[in-house]
């Protein structure tokens, strides 16, 4: 664990949103510094060296995607993007440019907090050191490549395991279709989204109690999948 509270840089142009986010995040033990524009935000990134960035995509002075691209040239800190609904393409572009996750406005503070925690977990722990992934009734033994649901071992194909493994590496965070297709099947399969859909259906049938009301493997419509790591 870190000694100090993790420091978040919040780049958001709306004053009220900034105030309410700051206040709520402070009570949840995050230290928050904020910037109201892209330019001042980029300057603060270099000076204050935050652990995490929350970036509103709709800034007046700079395009959010430009900020992400620029930032990625010198920093690897996790980026959480705030965006409007029905802008799936923008979300995908932001994720491709190097953002780690997104949250659709309007959102609850609880949702924001769990995303931030997922991002922090990812930078704080090295996945290889972790032998067992556990959430709800699902248990995956990463060293033996075994999957258990309610303590019963589930037969799983190598491809299915590969998909699940990538999602575990990003537990709690969104993983785009493109990323999964590229890493499981290879770059020449980027247009073959139906492969992924069919494998996901199979995986859900094996892991989920009710595949149409999944607890673990959540669809982020138009963007990708998310493996919930705090399933109850």
């Amino acid at each position, binding site marked *: 664990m870190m000694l100090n509270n993790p420091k978040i840089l919040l780049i958001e142009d709306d004053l009220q949103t900034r105030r309410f986010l700051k206040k709520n995040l402070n009570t949840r033990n995050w230290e928050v510094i904020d910037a109201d524009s892209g330019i001042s935000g980029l300057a603060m990134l270099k000076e204050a060296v935050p652990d995490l960035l929350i970036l509103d995509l709709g800034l007046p002075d700079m395009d959010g995607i430009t900020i992400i691209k620029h930032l990625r040239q010198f920093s690897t800190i996790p980026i959480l993007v705030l965006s409007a*609904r*029905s802008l*799936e393409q923008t979300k995908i572009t932001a994720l491709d440019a190097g953002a780690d996750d997104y949250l659709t406005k*309007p959102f609850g503070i609880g949702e924001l907090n769990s995303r931030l925690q997922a991002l922090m977990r990812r930078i704080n722990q090295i996945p290889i050191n972790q032998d067992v992934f556990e959430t709800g009734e699902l248990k995956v033994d990463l060293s033996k490549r075994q999957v258990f649901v309610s303590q019963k071992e589930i037969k799983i*194909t*190598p*491809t299915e395991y590969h998909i699940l493994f990538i999602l575990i590496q990003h537990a709690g965070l969104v993983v785009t279709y493109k990323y999964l297709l590229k890493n499981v099947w290879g770059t020449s399969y980027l247009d*073959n*989204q*139906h*492969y992924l*859909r*069919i494998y*996901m*259906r*199979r995986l*859900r049938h094996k892991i989920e109690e*009710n*595949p*149409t*009301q*999944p607890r673990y493997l*959540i*669809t*982020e*419509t*138009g963007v990708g999948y998310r493996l919930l790591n705090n399933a109850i």
Partner: protein
Amino acid sequence: MIFKKNICIQYVGGVLIPISCTLLNLTLEPITGRATFLMMYLFGVFLVASRWGYGASIVASLFSALLFDFYFTTPVFSLWMTNVEDLIALIIMISVGTITSNLLNQAKNAHIAKAKAEDEALRNSLLSAISHDLRTPLTRISGVATTLMENHDHIPKEEIQEFSHVIFDESQRMSELMNKILDMAKLSTGQISIHREWNTLEEVIGSALKRLEKELSTHPVNTYLSENLPLIWVDSVLFEQVIVNLIENAIKYTPSSSPIDIEANFSRQYLTITISDYGIGIPKSLENKIFDKFFRLEHETEQNGVGLGLSLCRSIIEMHGGIIQLKQVPHKGAVFVINLPIVQPPPMFLDESI
């Protein structure tokens, strides 16, 4: 510039068509007579009138008269006319040509005016619906906020909690409403480009149910999806919205703890999705009306939304080449049936057994 160019094309058309008619007439001359020549020219005039409008058709009409006079009246190859019958025929032709072009023109204008009026009516009802439906939650929010601001010292803790919930719920409602209005606006102006991808119905239904998790805490959902449903070729975001709207409707019009059924099966050509509730249902007489924009049942209050949900559903399903209908089923409430044409997915080369 473009406008001028169009006009130019219109008048060139008005000249070219009568010339073509003349050429045709000349070829047919050995086997036909004056009546056919005149009909041919009239046909040309109608063609011009329907394609390029009034002005061009007048040009075509006069030009036809000249050509007829020149080639087909005695003396031939002169504008001079010796035969009274030819003159009468010519006058009739010009009159019929102008009158019918005029009629066509009027009909066209009336059509445009009607479309404009419909557009206008739609815009008005949209504006009033938006202002009304946005104002209601806004009134509640500002009312509750004022109470909190002015009496914050003596409000019991539970009430603060309750007030905060009102603010949150109302703002969520506004946000949902905004989404619907924006979707509708984009759909009706043709701004939405549909972004089709292969998906499984299970996944779309799953994410719709996830989105409605909170609202569904009071209504159990039963899903009956037949095995091996074919892949669907849809815009996932829009299609999910259809499912969300239909489930939302079921939640709205049924008492709490009343179940909602989602079924899906398929035939050779169609995938059929049925969403039904066990409420009072919708009378058959309203079968078509409920899909109209801004249609609301008479007893509905502002709680029930703008009446855009079902009309959005219909627009989206039709964009996918499918149909959505209301069905009357004994012992059930509102039953909505979607029929979606099945599209053959690209081949898959699976390297492992299931």
